[in-house]
């Protein structure tokens, strides 16, 4: 798979490698993913940051002391509400639902570019390198005031690309 290629890691390319992701305590394994919608935290460096911890009222994310700890994810406690997505300043939290349908999974990601897509649009799903990997159907566009201008977009993608698609190609501006 494309996303499986080793990239040299986040410090070299800006893309966390699969090795870095799997080794991080925020990345859910296949058993958790199979259960339903669940957060996927792709935060692999010891940066001083912790808003994700307070964003999750179910206590599924723990940073603790010191705040340079990596976020630890307790997937059993996660109900897939998605509250943590818009709060993360690193835009490093996504939501994946492997059970969306027979052949498709849904992926939610933070999005801060205009114009916004609308529900029902067919957009281009991109991977961590910004490469288009599939067409994706927009299932939901959430941008309530409390998200503070970070929209959360949910798209349906082929199931085998659920752990690859992490955003969508920006839409053209009019004029």
């Amino acid at each position, binding site marked *: 798979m494309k996303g499986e290629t080793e990239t040299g890691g986040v410090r070299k390319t800006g893309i966390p490698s699969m090795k870095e992701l799997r080794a991080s305590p925020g990345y859910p394994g296949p058993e958790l993913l199979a259960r339903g919608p669940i957060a996927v935290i792709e935060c692999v460096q010891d*940066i001083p940051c912790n808003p994700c911890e307070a964003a999750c009222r179910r206590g599924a994310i723990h940073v603790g002391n010191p705040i340079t700890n990596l976020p630890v994810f307790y997937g059993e406690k996660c109900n897939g509400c998605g509250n943590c997505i818009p709060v993360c300043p690193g835009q490093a939290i996504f939501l994946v639902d492997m059970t969306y349908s027979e052949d498709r999974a849904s992926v939610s990601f933070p999005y801060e570019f205009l114009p916004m897509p609308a529900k029902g649009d067919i957009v281009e799903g991109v991977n961590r390198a910004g490469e288009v990997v599939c067409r994706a159907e927009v299932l939901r566009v959430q941008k309530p005031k409390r998200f503070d201008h970070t929209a959360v977009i949910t798209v349906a993608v082929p199931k085998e690309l659920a752990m690859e698609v992490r955003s969508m190609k920006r839409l053209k501006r009019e004029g």
Partner: protein
Amino acid sequence: MARKTEIAVVGAGPAGMAAAIEAGRAGARVIVIDENQRPGGQLFKQIHKFFGSEAHRAGTRGVQIGLDLLREAEEAGVATLLDTVVYGIFSDRCLGLAREHHTEELEADAVILATGASENALAFPGWTLPGVMGAGATQTLIHIHRVLPGKRALMVGAGNVGLIVSYQLLQAGAKVVAVVEGLPAIGGYGVHASKVRRAGVPILTGHTVLRAEGREGVERAVIARVDENWKPIAGTERTLEVDTICLAVGLSPLAELAWMAGCEFRYIPALGGWVPLHDGNMETTRKGIYVAGDLAGIEEASTAMEEGRLAGLAAAQSLGHLTRERGEKKKGEVHKRLAALRMGSFGEGRAISKEQILQARETV
């Protein structure tokens, strides 16, 4: 006759505002002076959500943190003098102010310098062409003046500033053709780099800009790979069609006033160059003159605010507005938070450098 105040704070960025708020809350008479029409320093250019801890309002946009600081300063009874440049500092903590076509003086019992930093430049053939600018200038154009500096940009530098400004250029509707970084690794946070990558921008480590070409302004940039000594490798040149080249190659403490006041300095590359020595109270080698924020070593808004708090508390305590016990207790809490912010692989270096400053201060 010179105007008088108890505490004068120079610079209304996060460091200066936090200092003023603490000193004002303690009951001191405080004036904050800034050359801009609006207080907030860098914060008003920063529309992105901030890192840091919950206690530092991380996850909040810089602009909002700026607004909150303004409100708190007002509540603490802090006076602000805007559109005013502090052009000098003279004996006995007397500040020279230039405002509205005249100059005046302000005498203070304590002075807190929080003047921030200036952007480093990078010289290469064509660097004086219109279209070559600092990343901070790019931010000012986009967020303060609402002007897009160009349609196709090259970013030089993959530290946090370069990465964040690249993202903001994309948000404003420009295309960022590439980010080049001379070092073999990305200096900024991985999560910032990942955002830019997902948006389709390549980050080329081990690359630099060789020259800018164009007649009336930037039309092209030539980049190349560099070896470990930053020497361009022949045959690796590439030409990019760009109309803007943004430089994000580091910041240096804006230390003129501290030099003028006669403070002792040390050269510490990890903190951005020459930094004024200070003790745990942020007091320099000149009595009653304090420093905080980027001026005391380039770091982040969250550390700038904490250092500001320290300076504000210490100055208020020295003027008798806080008992020794209360002052030490409050400062102890701030020190703890500062230590936490300087942990991890990104903070360690700064923690060590800051420790050097304290030690050097003791030997002066």
